[in-house]
C-alpha cells in the first residue's frame, strides 16, 4: 500500500479550510450560520478522519511518511513526518474530533455559541500539526496555534468564572511556551539547526552541560503542557469552567499532546540523558499520580473530580516513559509501548467520561456532589448512567476495557524490570481511582431523586439525547475493542514504540543534508 506524503497536508488543510469557510457565514444571522458552521466542521473532521485511516495503516506497516514543505531539502524546509506513533495519535485525535463535534451539537446552546465549531477545528489543526511536525520551532508554533484556539474556546461563554480560569490557563501556558522558546534559542545557538532529525545527529555531540540545560528547559515546558507534578496548577483551575464539550476535548487531547512530545523528544534527542533521569522520571510519575488522586478525593464537583483524574492518569503515561528509559532495547520498547497504549486509552476514555459527566451535569443542572441535585440520575437517565458506568470502570482499570490492559502492561513492565516502588504506587492509586469513581456513582447516580426537578434540561429532546450519547458510546466501543482484542491492538503499540525509539531510522527517513545548495553549485557546511 502506498500513500502520497502530500496527504499529510490534509491534517492541517482540512480542519483549516473548514474553519475558515465556517467563519465566512458569521454575517448570516445566528441560527443559520451556526448550522452551516456545524455542517462544514463535520465535513472537515470527517475528511480528517478518512485520511487518518490509510496513514495509520501505512505507518503500522513500518513506513514513515515524510513531506518536505515546498520541496526544500530537510534542514531548510520544514519537515512533516508521520511514523507509527504519530499515526496512532492522528487517528485517535480525528476520532475524538468527530465525536466531540457531534456531542457539542447535542449539548450546545445555540445562543452564545457563534464560532464554536471553527475554533474547535483550529484547535484540531494545531494538535494535528504538533503530532506531525519534525521541526522544533514549528512545534512551538503549533503549540501557540492550539493555545489561541483553546483560550478562545475556554472563555466562549464569557462568564466571570470562565474568564478567571482562562486567564490562569493562558498565563501559565504562556510561561511554559516561553521556556520552550528559550530552549529553541539555545538549541539553535548550539546545533545550528531546528530540524529534529538533524538535532538527533548533532545534539549528542554538544557539551553535556548544554544538553542538560536544553533538556531541562524542554522538560519544564512539556511537563507544564502535560500537567505533571508540580506544574499542573493551570489544569484544575480552568477545565471545569468551560462547556462540557470543551472540557471533554481538552481532557482528551491537550495533556496527551504534552505527553506525546515527551515521548517523541526525549528518546530521540536525549537518549543517554533519559537513562540517567530514570529515577527522577519515576518520582515525578509517582507524585503526579498521588497528588492527582488526592486532589480528586478532595473536591466535590463532578467535572473538577474528573479534571484531577486527568492529572493522576498522566502519571501512568510518564511511568511508561520511565520504563523506556533503560539501556535494554526490548524493555524500553515494552515500556514505551505501554505508555503509548495508556495515552490512547486516556484519549478515548477521558473524553468519554468527561462527556458523560458533563451530560449528567447538564441533566441535573448542577455538578455538585454534596447537594442532592444529582441524586438518582440512574432513574432519570438510565442510558446515561450505563454509559457513565462503563467509562468509569474503564478509567479505574477493570476488565474487559482498555484501562485494564494498559495498566496490566505497565505493571508487567515495571515488575519485570524490578521497579517495585512505582509498581506499588500505581496499584494503590488505581485502588483510589476506583474509590473515587464509586463516590461519583454513589452521590450522583444512585439513590432516589430527592427534589422535584424543574430544570429545563438542554439534552431533553430525544434527537439531542441521541446526539449526546452516541458519540460517548462510540468512544467506549473503541476502548472495549482494545480491551477484548488486545493481542492485535498491542502489536500496534509495539510498532509505534519501536519506531519512536529507532533514532537511526528517523534520521534516515528525513535524511537532512549537510550540503548547502546555491545557484551554480554547492558546498559542504561544517
Amino acid at each position, binding site marked *: 500500500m502506498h500513500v502520497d506524503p502530500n496527504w499529510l*497536508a490534509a491534517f492541517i488543510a482540512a480542519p483549516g*479550510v473548514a474553519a*475558515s*469557510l465556517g*467563519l465566512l457565514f*458569521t*454575517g448570516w444571522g445566528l441560527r443559520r450560520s451556526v448550522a452551516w458552521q456545524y455542517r462544514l466542521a463535520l465535513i472537515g473532521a470527517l475528511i480528517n478522519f478518512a485520511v487518518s485511516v490509510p496513514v495509520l495503516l501505512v505507518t503500522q506497516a513500518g513506513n514513515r511518511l515524510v*513531506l518536505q514543505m*515546498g520541496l526544500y531539502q530537510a534542514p531548510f524546509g520544514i519537515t512533516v513526518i508521520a511514523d507509527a506513533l504519530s499515526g496512532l495519535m492522528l487517528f485517535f485525535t480525528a476520532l475524538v474530533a468527530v465525536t466531540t463535534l457531534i456531542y457539542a451539537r447535542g449539548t450546545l446552546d445555540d445562543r452564545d455559541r457563534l464560532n464554536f465549531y471553527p475554533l474547535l477545528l483550529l484547535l484540531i489543526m494545531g494538535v494535528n500539526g504538533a503530532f506531525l511536525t519534525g521541526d522544533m520551532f514549528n512545534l512551538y508554533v503549533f503549540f501557540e496555534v492550539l493555545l489561541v484556539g483553546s483560550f478562545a474556546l475556554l472563555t466562549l461563554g464569557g462568564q466571570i468564572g470562565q474568564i478567571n480560569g482562562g486567564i490562569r490557563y493562558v498565563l501559565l501556558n504562556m510561561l511554559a511556551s516561553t521556556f520552550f522558546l528559550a530552549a529553541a534559542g539555545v538549541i539553535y545557538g548550539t546545533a545550528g539547526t531546528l530540524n529534529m532529525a538533524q538535532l538527533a545527529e548533532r545534539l549528542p555531540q554538544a557539551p553535556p552541560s548544554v544538553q542538560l540545560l536544553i533538556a531541562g528547559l524542554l522538560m519544564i515546558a512539556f511537563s507544564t503542557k502535560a500537567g505533571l507534578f508540580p506544574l499542573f496548577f493551570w489544569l484544575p483551575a480552568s477545565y471545569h469552567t468551560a462547556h462540557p464539550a470543551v472540557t471533554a476535548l481538552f481532557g482528551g487531547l491537550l495533556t496527551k499532546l504534552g505527553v506525546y512530545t515527551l515521548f517523541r523528544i526525549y528518546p530521540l534527542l536525549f537518549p543517554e540523558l533519559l537513562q540517567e533521569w530514570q529515577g527522577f522520571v519515576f518520582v515525578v510519575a509517582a507524585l503526579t499520580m498521588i497528588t492527582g488522586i488526592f486532589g480528586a478525593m478532595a473536591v466535590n464537583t463532578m467535572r473538577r473530580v474528573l479534571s484531577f483524574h486527568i492529572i493522576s492518569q498522566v502519571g501512568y503515561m510518564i511511568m511508561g516513559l520511565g520504563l523506556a528509559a533503560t539501556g535494554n532495547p526490548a524493555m524500553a520498547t515494552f515500556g514505551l509501548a505501554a505508555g503509548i497504549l495508556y495515552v490512547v486509552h486516556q484519549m478515548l476514555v477521558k473524553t468519554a467520561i468527561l462527556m458523560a459527566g458533563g451530560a449528567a451535569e447538564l441533566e441535573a443542572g448542577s455538578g455538585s456532589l454534596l447537594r442532592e441535585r444529582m441524586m438518582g440520575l440512574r432513574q432519570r437517565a438510565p442510558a446515561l448512567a450505563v454509559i457513565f458506568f462503563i467509562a468509569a470502570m474503564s478509567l479505574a482499570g477493570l476488565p474487559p476495557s482498555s484501562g485494564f490492559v494498559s495498566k496490566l502492561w505497565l505493571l508487567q513492565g515495571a515488575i519485570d524490570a524490578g521497579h517495585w516502588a512505582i509498581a506499588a504506587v500505581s496499584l494503590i492509586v488505581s485502588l483510589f481511582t476506583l474509590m473515587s469513581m464509586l463516590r461519583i456513582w454513589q452521590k450522583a447516580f444512585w439513590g432516589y431523586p430527592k427534589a422535584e426537578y424543574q430544570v429545563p434540561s438542554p439534552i431533553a429532546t430525544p434527537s439531542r439525547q441521541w446526539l449526546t450519547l452516541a458519540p460517548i458510546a462510540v468512544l467506549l466501543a473503541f476502548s472495549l475493542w482494545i480491551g477484548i482484542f488486545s493481542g492485535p491492538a498491542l502489536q500496534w503499540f509495539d510498532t509505534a514504540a519501536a519506531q519512536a525509539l529507532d533514532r537511526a531510522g528517523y534520521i534516515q527517513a528525513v535524511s537532512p543534508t549537510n550540503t548547502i545548495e546555491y545557484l551554480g553549485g554547492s558546498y559542504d557546511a561544517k
Partner: protein
Amino acid sequence: MPELYLRLLDRVLTPILLVLAAYLFLRGHNEPGGGFIAGLAAASAIQLQILSLGDEPVRRRYARFLHPMAGLGLFIALLSAILGILRGGYFSSLWGKVQLGEVELELGTPLLFDLGVFLIVFSVIVSFLLALSRQDEGKTP
C-alpha cells in the same frame, strides 16, 4: 465630539496609510515588507478613523465584515499552500508572469499567501482596536 483637526488629519492620512500598506504588501516578496506588516499599516488607518470619528461609526461600518474577512484570509492562505501540490509538494510555489503594458508583474502563490496573511492580520487587529475603544463602560460586554 471628535476633534476637527483629527478629522482633517484622517482625510489626509488615511489614503496615504492605505497606499503605504499596498506598497509594503507588494514589495514584500524580495524586500522587507509583506502581508503582516501591510495588515498592521492598514489597521493603523482604521485606528485613525476610530480616533477621529469615534468608535461607533467605525464599528457600524466594518464590524460585520471582520470575522468573514479573517476566514477568507485563512482560506486564501491555505489555498495557496494546497495549490503547491500541483507542482508536487504542499506549499511549493507556482509563479506566472503578467504583462501590463510596460510593466512585467510576477504573480505567484506566495503573493496569494501574503494576501491571506494580510486579511487575517488586518481583521484581527481591527477587531482588537474596536474592542479596546468601546466606550460604554457602564455595561458589561
